[in-house]
């Protein structure tokens, strides 16, 4: 077999392109971290944390938010659509439904009275300021 033959072979198999194609296929099947409903994101700075959760289709007044120390608990129910009688049937049922109770560990203790929650377009935003007592204190050095 000649080198020139190999080159010809390469044109048919195009190994590099094939590898690139496989890489793309693999990239599509990445596994994002999964959690219990609802999925949450936590944003934090030294002063406070912001928890966001996607809870579409739930009346915000029926979401129970409690804080104790450095844990935040979200509770509620997401009703599935009812199917009545023989005339109605599901073609697809992908949306999550049922009771949820999610406990979220925060990076630090929070000031319970200063917690604020907002709900817009199916997304819950909870602002959790850090407890005063836990905030880092700067220590001044005194020279004697």
């Amino acid at each position: 077999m000649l080198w020139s033959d190999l080159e010809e072979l390469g044109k048919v198999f195009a190994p590099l392109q094939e590898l690139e194609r496989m890489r793309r296929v693999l990239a599509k099947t990445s596994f994002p971290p999964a959690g219990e409903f609802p999925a949450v994101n936590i944003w934090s700075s030294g002063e406070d944390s912001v928890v966001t959760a996607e809870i579409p289709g739930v009346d915000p007044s029926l979401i129970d938010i409690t804080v104790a120390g450095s844990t935040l608990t979200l509770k509620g129910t997401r009703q599935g659509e009812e199917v009545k009688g023989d005339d109605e049937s599901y073609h697809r049922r992908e949306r999550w439904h049922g009771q949820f109770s999610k406990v979220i560990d925060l990076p630090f203790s929070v000031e319970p009275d200063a917690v604020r929650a907002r709900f817009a377009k199916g997304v819950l935003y909870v602002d959790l300021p850090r407890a005063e007592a836990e905030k880092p204190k700067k220590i001044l050095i005194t020279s004697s």
Partner: protein
Amino acid sequence: MQENQKEVVKREAEVQEGIERTRSTKVYAPATDIIEKKDNMVLFADMPGVDEKSVEVTLEKNILTIYGKVEPRMPEKRKLVLSEYGIGDYHRTFTVSDAIDRDRIDATVSNGVLKLVLPKAEALKTKKIAVKAEN
């Protein structure tokens, strides 16, 4: 979805191989319930972050397209310490039968859920025929 399945993962919308989107944001396929009723089909799609102004529903021939644009809201000056979901637009297409009355499709958005009511065409509604006893 199973009753006992508690895990939730947003599924990315499918794109044909070799074709790329112009915008670099992620695009998800919203979880959808479709219920067939006597006079209509009802579709519910979970699209958190979307309101009535940012969702588009089109029906071309028999392809029903749902597109929802999400303005990402990232809290400023904070680091993401836990990420269970990604933020992006929503896109999903369905084929619908010709038996849908195109002029009377109704779309509403409430708390991040899109509800579509697709009425069945008058002529194609199933008619129940009463069976009478003959004496």
